[in-house]
Each structure stands twice: as structure tokens, then as C-alpha cells.
């Protein structure tokens, strides 16, 4: 769950989607990678996490699986981050790779990774490790602008990893500079150049592009126009970036959300039928489309 800008509801969404999926019968682990502004644990009702990523960073715990702690919500585990030691907050390169690989091997049905704000390479890596990156937007210019910057940065980061030939990677690096002397403005321009330079890498480029499928969530909509913003951003992603970014859902402004954070409880427990709850359940259902059926089908009936 990423999106560039701070305060658009990434952590809110991570926590409550975790709860929604758990109540549909899935086993979920929520992971807080927002090391400088960690508070996913609070949304999930955990007061002071007994183990956190800091233990992994400091080498006190080498097994990522053992970082998972229980939450008051059944079927939701948590890997928390806390503002313990900011000086050595981020894992080094070696540990980060191990963390990212472990996230893909968690013994559960869904891993929800809450990314911090901004488009720092480490944030992008947490986003890119996902199958379905959720791009969270607010219907306002600053958020939309940051979301595009985030998509662009994530896209190029992924390309750098995917492409193999040295001169082609240099070209990608060059393209990341928006004022690139070669006049490469969009990923599509870049694709043309790569194809000319090396058809095999061009093929790899297209493949990578196809697999990069962030999904858009517009949070705090107030008007029908806000609702439609998701379609517009999806259109721009396809047309300008060449990226298929489906519009998976929106949430409207809801007083119950504020109430939920004040009470440090999932919004479903504060107000089960509120707008936010209905919208979250809908997004969770879409996320679960194509996923294996929940282990515990009885829970499904409860969530409906």
C-alpha cells in the first residue's frame, strides 16, 4: 500500500483491509515498513509491540517469521515497526533482501505491506515486492502529482532490476531524469529506444511492464467527480506510462474513521455498517478475487 504522499490513508487502509480480509476467512499478516512514522500497530489496537523490525535491523532477531506478533483481531498478525533507534532504523542491503524475500514466503494468505510516504528506493522495493500494489490517492492535486511521481519511480526501479545489459540500464538511468538530454519523457519513449538498442531487452521491458499492475484507490471522496478521478488516473497511467492500473475502489469521507483511530479499533468494530466499512469490504473482495478460497468459509458469511 503506497502512494507517495503522506496522510492519504495508507496505514488506515492497510490496517482495515487486513481486518476485512481476515473476516472473510483469510489469514493475514500486516507489515509496517514506514520506519520513520510507524503506527500501523496503533490502528490494529496493539499498544506496544513486543517485537519489531528494529529487532531484525539490529540483528537481535534473524528470522523474519518470528517478528510476527498477534493482534486483537483474529487471523491478523503484525510485523510492527517502531521509532526505536532512528540512527540505525533501516536494514542494510543484505537484510533488506532477506526481509523482502521473507515477505513473499509468509505462512498466510495475504501480506499487506504498509509503505511510508515518498518514493525512496527502499519504499519502492517494499511496494514492488507485492503482487497487487495499491496506489492510494486523495482527490487533490498534490496527492495526484505525488502518485504519478511514485508510479514513475517504481516503474523505473523495477526496470533497472529487470533489464540486464549494461548500456540499456544506463539508458534507463538516463530516462529517470525528467530533463533527460535524450528527450525521453515517458516509459513508452524509453521502450522505443530500448527496442532499437537491443530487441531482446525490449522484449524483457514489455514483459516487465505487463507485470507491473498497481491498483488505484481514491480515498476520502466527497463528490461524484472525485469518484471519477480514479478512472482518469487509470487512463493517464495507461496512456502516458503504458501501465495497466485498474481502479479497484474508493472510500468516502466518514466520521467513523476518525472515531476508529481515536478508539484504536478497526472501523468495522466501531461502526460495522458505516460507509467506510462497506467500501473496505468491497475492495477486500476485489483483492481476494482469484485468490484461493479462505480456509474458514464460515467467516465469509459473517462478513457479508
Amino acid at each position, binding site marked *: 500500500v503506497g502512494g507517495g504522499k503522506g496522510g492519504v490513508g495508507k496505514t488506515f487502509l492497510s490496517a482495515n483491509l487486513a481486518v476485512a480480509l481476515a473476516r472473510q476467512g483469510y489469514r493475514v499478516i500486516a507489515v509496517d515498513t514506514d520506519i520513520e512514522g510507524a503506527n500501523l500497530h496503533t490502528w490494529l489496537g496493539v499498544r506496544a509491540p513486543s517485537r519489531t523490525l528494529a529487532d531484525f535491523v539490529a540483528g537481535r532477531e534473524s528470522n523474519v517469521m518470528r517478528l510476527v506478533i498477534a493482534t486483537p483481531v483474529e487471523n491478523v498478525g503484525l510485523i510492527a515497526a517502531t521509532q526505536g533507534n532512528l540512527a540505525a532504523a533501516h536494514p542494510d542491503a543484505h537484510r533488506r533482501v532477506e526481509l523482502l524475500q521473507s515477505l513473499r514466503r509468509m505462512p498466510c494468505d495475504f501480506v499487506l505491506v504498509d509503505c511510508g510516504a515518498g518514493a525512496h528506493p527502499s519504499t519502492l522495493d517494499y511496494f514492488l515486492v507485492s503482487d497487487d500494489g495499491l496506489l492510494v490517492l486523495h*482527490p*487533490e*492535486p498534490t496527492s*495526484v*502529482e505525488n502518485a*504519478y511521481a511514485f508510479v514513475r519511480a517504481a516503474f523505473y526501479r523495477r526496470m533497472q532490476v529487470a533489464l540486464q545489459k549494461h548500456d540499456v540500464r544506463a539508458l534507463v538511468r538516463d530516462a529517470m531524469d525528467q530533463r533527460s538530454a535524450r528527450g525521453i519523457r515517458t516509459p*513508452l519513449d524509453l521502450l522505443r529506444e530500448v527496442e532499437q538498442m537491443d530487441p531482446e531487452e525490449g522484449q524483457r521491458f514489455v514483459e516487465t511492464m505487463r507485470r507491473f499492475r498497481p491498483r488505484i484507490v481514491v480515498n476520502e*471522496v466527497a*463528490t*461524484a*467527480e472525485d*469518484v*471519477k*478521478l480514479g*478512472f*482518469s*488516473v487509470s*487512463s*493517464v497511467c*495507461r*496512456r*502516458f506510462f*503504458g501501465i495497466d492500473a485498474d*481502479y479497484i*475502489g*474508493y472510500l*468516502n469521507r466518514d466520521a467513523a474513521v476518525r472515531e476508529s483511530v481515536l478508539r484504536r479499533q478497526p472501523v468495522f468494530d466501531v461502526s460495522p*455498517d*458505516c*460507509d467506510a466499512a*462497506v*467500501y473496505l469490504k*468491497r475492495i477486500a473482495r476485489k483483492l481476494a478475487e482469484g485468490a484461493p478460497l479462505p480456509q474458514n468459509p464460515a467467516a465469509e458469511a459473517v462478513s*457479508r
Partner: protein
Amino acid sequence: VRPFSEQTHYEILEIAREAPPAEIERAYRIVRATYAEDSLATYSIYDAAELRAIQERIELAHRVLADAEQRAAYDASLGTAERVELALSFADDDEVSASPELKGFEELGEGGPFDGARLRRARLARGIELDRIASVTKINPTYLRFIEDDRFQELPATVYVRGFVTAYVRCLGLEPERIVPSYMERLLAARPEKPLRALAQRTR
């Protein structure tokens, strides 16, 4: 994905070859808004000249596809895909008279009573602003907001509210038969029969 200049009219409007006329109009409105001068979605992406070029392509696509004859000729020129039976009437140009849901945002499978929040969700899922409903139905937008907020005590006499909710529901292209009684039941439970005070006040 190809640049705008190489896309078909269908790709420009992001619709399928077999899209019916109403779908073309709806897609056109969304695409036009996306690439409008002051659009939230595009201002940081395209410069003025690029936007103008895109807007011209959108207008052209709409001009061709909205006209049955031109569309048929264009389809023929595209070849490959099978020919589409075109409906010849475009009477339904009013977005409010019957608005299908925006792609993929089903709402009514929810179950439970139709409260104001659910009506609002159904409205948003169809991309319809409250002001639009007010202007079509001539209902005071403040009352429409009260309906969505379940502020029963501030709404006028029951007979009026029933009319308002019916008009609102029709605007969304929904059937009032199922929805209105559900809404009114909650209103009456919260506000046992209220006399025609609003009428009395107005005629006084």
C-alpha cells in the same frame, strides 16, 4: 499502448467496438473531463499543446462514433472486427435519466435496508452529483442532503419525502418499488407519523 495519434476512436474513448450509444456518451464525458484544461488527473502530466492535441482527438472520436452513419463507415474502414448493429436513436442523451453504474462498482448486491448512506453510495457509484439530481428533480438540494444523511427530523412531511426519495431513486435509474418503502420504513420508525406541518406553514 500506442500514442494518441495512432489510436482508434474506440481506444481514445476507452470503449469496446460493440459499445452502445449511451456507453459512448458516458465514456466521452469521462475522457473529456480527464483531459480537460484544468483536470486534476492530467495537469502535472501534459503541457498545454499536448492537451490540445489530445482534446482534438477526443472530439473527433466522439463526432465520428456518435453519428450512426459515420460510425458504420469508420467501422468498415477498421475492418477485422465484426460489424455492430447500431441503434439509430440517441434520445437518451441525459446522463441522469438512466445511469448505469460506473464500470465495476456494483452497489446493490449489499443487502440490508436502504438508508441514506446506501442511497449516496449508489449515487456515487453512478458518478452523479447531488446538484444534478436537484436540477433535474427541482428538489431543494438541502433536502436531498438530509435524505442522504438520514436527518429525518429536518425533512418535511412524510408524503413529500416519499416523493423526493422516489424522484431521487428514479434519477439513479433504479426501481423505486423496492427502495422507497425500505427508506420510508426507517424514517417512519424514527419519526412516527408527522402531520402536514410543512404544508400548513407554506400556505399560511
